[in-house]
């Protein structure tokens, strides 16, 4: 009803006004005054008055502008910023009244401040200041009313600026602005501005001093505003004062100060607000604070200022939050946000305020334990913060521009002197140019003694030296590898020798079987045959003993090569089989693993390879083989899984529990092929780990399988402690890296909800960060720390971290739009600079003329010299990166030169480099060769090494598993000898020997499989070389020999080593050639051998194992030469005995 009535009244007035112009002007100014007075009392009445003034102002542009300004102010209060700006645009468009335009500028500033547009704020401010200076220069001509308006604009300008700085956290600027405002404020002439000023003073942050005094002063300001506003019905300020007071009361410390010093005012307020106290669950003080807020909200609602209502609501929320009534706080914050968010859709949001409310929400949610929402709001908070940043630099820039304007005259003279200076300098420059051209020429000619040249030469020398060293290293590595291969080769021969001893049992065993079979046909010959069986058993036992003692002798001598390595190294070798798998339509999946293990690398590779091979063998097309590495406790379980045909349960049983079995029978139920010795070898390797050290107790091997579904073969190796590596990597990196790692830890800890850890991590990281390091990292760290504190509910810590985060964020994020801002400011000064421009243009023209006529040629000549020099020195400087092309580049340069003198010097330079570079190139070729060779040798070594290791295992299995049989057989034979033969015992004996032979043969074959490939490298060996080798140890009778034999030099040396370790030192060596054989004879004087010794010398019953090694080497030669019949004989001679062996005579090698 009221609205309708006022509307009617307005229309009526409108009709009335339009009739008389004179009266209209009166009405306009009256209504404008009214609108102004009412703006803080009753906003809708103010709007009405303004509208009325507007409607009557058709002939009065100034009044119209003022009316528009008033309307704009109302819409500003109602948070309709788009409308405000629209109205202001209107003012700008038609009004020439500087005073009203100034008011419009000030209002623009207010809007921009609230919606957080820093740049637009400054634009408006700049405009306002310019206008102000113009108006002030004519201040005397202003009417009283206009003066009043000017004062309003002035106070408003400074207060807004102060507010702006206050929100930016630039307290000193805010303070100086408010002090400026203070001088224009007058209670009598303009009560509203007086209230505004005091409210600003009271609302905090603008007074310097000790906190207690400041609080009390602020309280005084606010109290004064409150009482005066209440008395005069300035609802807006009354509500604002109450809101600020509420915040003050909610703070226990500040409240207590106020209570102490202004108990009168405090209790007055308290008494006044008893009726507003609603929530009895709060403590008294909080009830009071809440009451103030409630009152404030009611007033703002009455006044219809949505934004301020929201602000008051937020204050209420903060009161609840402080009182730890989070649910209530949340409700209030959400209400506040809701109120403000009605204006969300508008492009003009109250960004800084929104940021604040989101922070409040984030904290409240986190207090309520809703981490997700808390994070969500915190992110919005940070985003909004980012939007509303501003730069502090602006002030100084503005000051600079002002200074510039003042110094115009000074500049003019300066410019004049500059012109003179330029002319003088040009002349000097020209002279110098001439001189420098000459010096450049000299420089080029003498490039051979330049620093660049010396540097390059030095680099070259260094490179050469390095390449020599590298060459030497590769050569040494090759030699080391060669030595290691030799060792493995020797070891392998020893293994083969042992294997031949193992084999020696087989004929005996076959004889025993044959004898046992025939026992029941023997009749009276039985005892004789039994005793033969007993003898054979003793023979076997002797051989077994030999073998045992030999194996034991070498145990622990050559252990496993245990090292620490990442599993990935092994896996990457295996992954080279992808192609082979793909060809069989199989997929091979290999994981990326960062696990390190402690084991024998070559053997680990062998095991994985064996298992993968097996899996491939038993997986049909379309299947998949997967390698897995699972880190469990202190070991790694490496498994090879397939989707193959699987194994029957009984086979799994056999594989998991039996030490010895026939591998060819495993898996044959489903497939036509057997398993081979691979699994047995793998188990053997795992056992030898276990024997080595207790560290390897975790080692194990196992099989899981389901018929038709697939199998999983796994083994375990000890894991290397990853913690050690973590620390190692931490220290290996530079400091900043550690900070980043701490940041990552913080971030992860926050993600995982380990907030206490996160806080600590962030704290350590912040301590590590030093000044030159990335500010953004620091901001992030503080942010993470704030999040952690927030989640922990430690509000003080939160506030500290957050404040630091926000401060740094502002400091860090510079506003890029500033550049354009400044450009625009400078452009404004341009008009006055036309004169300078003309002078400068003239100067440039004359300089251009000077350049065209004189300077150009000089410069060109100089430039070509300079270019040449630069090219040369850049070629030299970029050495050694351009080592490959340097010679060509220099040649190229010298070809393109037309001055012979210069060409000569470049040519010399070229010559100096090319020979050294050639050498370098040659070296790198050698290095490549050596490295390739080393690689090949490494492969060869690993092959031999694995073979030997497996042979070791096989031999020890043979030793363990079959040792007891001969004595058992002998025992039964003894028994038969005494008690006669009964069929049962005979059967038992036959079974026993047959079983013994089967298992023995099986194990022998497993071992023998490793010796399928010959390790001999046959080549023509000069007999003279062999003799020379032998002569280092013994006497040589033979004159120089020209013959060559077919053999492996390394093994022949080994043969000599073995020989000389069994014959006396004074033995002599001679050489004889017969038919196609070369006999090498070792004569031993002074002692002869018994017939027994002679016949057993090279048999497993021999006294010295060396003889067997010699025999083995000969045997290998026999097999590899393709010419059977090499001799190895021991005979007694007249003066002692001799050992002779023969090798196949051959031709001299082609290339020597």
């Amino acid at each position, binding site marked *: 009803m009221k609205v309708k009535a006022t509307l009617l009244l307005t229309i009526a007035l409108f009709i009335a006004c339009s009739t008389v112009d004179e009266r209209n002007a009166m009405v306009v100014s009256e209504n404008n005054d009214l609108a102004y007075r009412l703006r803080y009392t009753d906003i809708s009445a103010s709007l009405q008055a303004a509208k009325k003034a507007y409607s009557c102002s058709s002939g009065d542009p100034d009044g119209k502008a003022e009316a528009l300004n008033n309307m704009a102010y109302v819409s500003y209060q109602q948070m309709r910023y788009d409308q405000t700006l629209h109205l202001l645009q209107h003012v700008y468009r038609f009004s020439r009244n500087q005073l009203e335009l100034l008011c419009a500028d000030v209002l623009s500033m207010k809007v921009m401040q609230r919606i957080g547009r820093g740049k637009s704020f400054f634009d408006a401010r700049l405009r306002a200041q310019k206008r102000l200076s113009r108006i002030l220069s004519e201040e005397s001509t202003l009417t009283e009313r206009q003066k009043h308006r000017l004062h309003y604009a002035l106070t408003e300008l400074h207060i807004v600026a102060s507010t702006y700085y206050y929100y930016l956290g630039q307290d000193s600027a805010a303070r100086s602005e408010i002090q400026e405002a203070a001088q224009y404020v007058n209670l009598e002439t303009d009560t509203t501005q007086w209230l505004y000023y005091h409210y600003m003073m009271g609302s905090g942050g603008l007074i310097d001093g000790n906190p207690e005094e400041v609080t009390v002063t602020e309280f005084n300001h606010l109290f004064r505003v409150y009482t005066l506003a209440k008395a005069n019905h300035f609802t807006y300020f009354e509500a604002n004062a109450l809101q600020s007071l509420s915040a003050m009361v909610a703070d226990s410390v500040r409240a207590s100060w106020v209570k102490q010093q202004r108990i009168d005012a405090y209790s007055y307020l308290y008494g006044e607000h008893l009726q507003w106290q609603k929530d009895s669950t709060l403590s008294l003080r909080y009830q009071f604070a809440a009451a103030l807020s409630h009152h404030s909200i009611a007033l703002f609602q009455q006044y219809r200022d949505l934004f301020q209502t929201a602000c008051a609501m937020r204050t209420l929320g903060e009161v609840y939050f402080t009182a730890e009534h989070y649910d209530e706080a949340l409700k209030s914050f959400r209400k506040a946000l809701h109120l403000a968010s009605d204006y969300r859709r508008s492009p003009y949001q109250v960004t800084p305020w929104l940021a604040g409310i989101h922070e409040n929400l984030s904290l409240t949610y986190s207090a309520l334990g809703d981490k997700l929402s808390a994070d969500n709001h915190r992110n919005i908070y940070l985003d909004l913060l980012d939007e509303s940043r501003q730069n502090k630099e602006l002030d100084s820039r503005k000051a600079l521009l002002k200074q510039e304007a003042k110094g115009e005259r000074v500049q003019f003279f300066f410019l004049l002197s500059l012109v003179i200076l330029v002319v003088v300098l040009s002349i000097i420059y020209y002279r110098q140019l001439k001189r420098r051209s000459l010096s450049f020429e000299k420089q080029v000619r003498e490039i051979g003694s330049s620093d660049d040249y010396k540097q390059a030469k030095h680099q070259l020398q260094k490179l050469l030296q390095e390449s020599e060293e590298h060459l030497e290293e590769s050569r040494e590595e090759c030699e080391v590898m060669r030595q290691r291969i030799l060792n493995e080769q020797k070891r392998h021969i020893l293994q083969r020798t042992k294997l031949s001893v193992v084999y020696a049992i*087989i*004929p*005996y065993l*076959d*004889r025993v079987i*044959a*004898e046992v*079979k025939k026992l029941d046909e*023997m009749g009276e*010959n039985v005892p*004789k*045959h039994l005793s*033969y069986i007993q*003898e*054979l058993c003793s*023979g076997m036992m002797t051989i077994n003993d030999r073998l045992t003692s030999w194996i034991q002798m070498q145990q622990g001598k050559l252990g496993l090569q245990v090292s620490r390595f990442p599993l990935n190294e092994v896996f990457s070798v295996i992954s080279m089989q992808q192609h082979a798998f793909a060809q069989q*339509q199989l997929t091979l999946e290999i994981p990326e693993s960062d696990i390190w293990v402690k084991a024998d690398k070559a053997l680990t590779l062998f095991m994985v390879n064996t298992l993968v091979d097996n899996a491939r063998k038993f997986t049909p*097309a379309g299947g998949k083989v997967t390698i897995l590495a699972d880190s469990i406790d202190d070991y790694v379980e490496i498994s090879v899984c397939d989707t193959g045909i699987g194994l029957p349960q009984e086979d799994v049983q056999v594989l998991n529990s039996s030490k010895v079995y026939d591998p060819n029978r495993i898996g044959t139920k489903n497939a036509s092929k057997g398993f081979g010795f691979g699994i047995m070898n793998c188990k053997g390797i795992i056992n030898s780990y276990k024997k080595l050290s207790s560290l390897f107790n975790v080692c194990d091997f196992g099989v899981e399988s389901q018929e038709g579904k697939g199998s999983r073969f796994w083994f375990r190796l000890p894991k290397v402690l990853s913690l050690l590596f973590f620390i190692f990597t931490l220290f290996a990196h530079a400091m900043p890296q550690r900070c980043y790692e701490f940041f990552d830890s913080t971030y992860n800890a926050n993600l995982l909800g380990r907030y206490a850890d996160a806080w600590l991590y962030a704290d350590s990281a912040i301590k590590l960060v030093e000044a030159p390091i990335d500010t953004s990292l620091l901001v992030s760290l503080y942010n993470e720390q704030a999040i952690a504190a927030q989640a922990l509910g430690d509000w003080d810590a939160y506030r500290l971290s957050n404040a630091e985060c926000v401060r740094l964020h502002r400091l860090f994020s510079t506003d890029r739009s500033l550049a354009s801002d400044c450009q625009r400011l400078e452009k404004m000064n341009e008009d006055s600079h036309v004169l300078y421009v003309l002078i400068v243009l003239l100067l440039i023209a004359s300089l251009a003329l000077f350049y065209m006529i004189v300077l150009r040629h000089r410069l060109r000549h100089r430039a070509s010299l300079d270019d040449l020099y630069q090219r040369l020195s850049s070629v030299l400087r970029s050495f050694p990166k351009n080592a490959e092309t340097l010679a060509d580049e220099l040649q190229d340069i010298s070809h393109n030169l037309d001055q012979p003198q210069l060409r000569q010097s470049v040519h010399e330079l070229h010559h100096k480099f090319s020979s050294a570079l050639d050498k370098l190139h040659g070296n790198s070729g050698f290095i490549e060769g050596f490295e390739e060779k080393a690689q090949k040798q490494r492969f060869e070594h690993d092959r031999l090494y694995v073979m030997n290791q497996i042979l070791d295992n096989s031999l020890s299995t043979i030793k363990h598993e079959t040792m007891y049989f001969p004595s058992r057989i002998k025992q039964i034979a003894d028994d038969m000898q005494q008690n006669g033969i009964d069929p049962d015992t005979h059967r038992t004996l036959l079974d026993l020997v047959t079983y013994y032979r089967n298992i023995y043969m099986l194990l022998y074959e497993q071992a*023998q499989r490793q010796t399928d490939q010959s390790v001999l490298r046959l080549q023509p060996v000069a007999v003279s070389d062999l003799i020379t080798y032998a002569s280092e140890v013994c006497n040589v009778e033979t004159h120089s020999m020209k013959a060559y034999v077919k053999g492996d030099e390394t093994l022949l040396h080994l043969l000599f080593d073995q020989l000389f370790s069994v014959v006396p030192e004074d033995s002599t060596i001679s050489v004889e050639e017969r038919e196609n054989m070369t006999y090498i004879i070792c004569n031993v004087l002074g002692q002869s051998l018994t017939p027994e010794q002679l*016949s057993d*010398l*090279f*048999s497993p019953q021999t006294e010295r194992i060396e*003889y067997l090694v*010699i*025999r083995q080497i*000969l*045997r290998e030669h*026999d*097999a590899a030469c393709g010419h*059977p*019949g*090499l*001799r*190895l*004989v*021991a*005979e007694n001679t007249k003066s002692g005995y001799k050992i002779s*062996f023969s090798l196949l005579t051959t031709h001299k090698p082609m290339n020597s």
Partner: protein
Amino acid sequence: MDKFKVIIVEDDKLELKGTQQILQTEVPEAEIIGTATGEADFWKLMREGQPDLVLLDLGLGGSTTVGVDICRQLRTRYSDMKILIFTGEILNERLWVEVLTAGADGIILKTGNLLQRDDIVQVMHGRHLVFNEPFLEKVMARFRKVVCKEQASVDAFVEYEIDEYDERFLRHLALGYTKDMIAGLRQMPFSTKSLEKRQVDLTNRLFPERERSGVNAVRLVVRAIQLHIIDPDNLVADEQ
């Protein structure tokens, strides 16, 4: 069987004893005129009296193959003399071939039933190639393999419908002929183009569908060898 003289060459005394026992109990007609443990001993014995049969071990003393050499020399000097190899080299097949080439009348492996009367009787009756069961088993296994391979070849021709031109084409591809060269062969009445067609056709016949992609001439030839369609040991080019 008449009485005959025998020399046993055996370096292991325990084994020698066993062999002697076998002869004494199973072949009473044999008169052991000497035993030797080494090469030198043996030739000394030979000078003293010539036996009808030499029972020879291959490895003596340090040398493992000296028996081959002894056998060769014996055969050259005494062409009528019976030489029976009695050896423990039960795995070394190469050596068996060597010693048979050198003139041995038979090989008895020191495993299974060892030496039996029947073996001696057969040798003394002038039979060559006298072998005991373990030896024959090994030979049989090899023989079976070869025969199976040949049968596989026949089967492959039927199964994959290989005609003589297919075989000739594959064989010449294996020998490195280009299709142009093969088209120029007298017995190959095809153009290069139709040979290309034939190659595609062969690929389709020899490979299951999912393996066909990317099969080139080399892969095709290897497949043909794997299926025993062409014999890598018998790759001969036809006349031009």
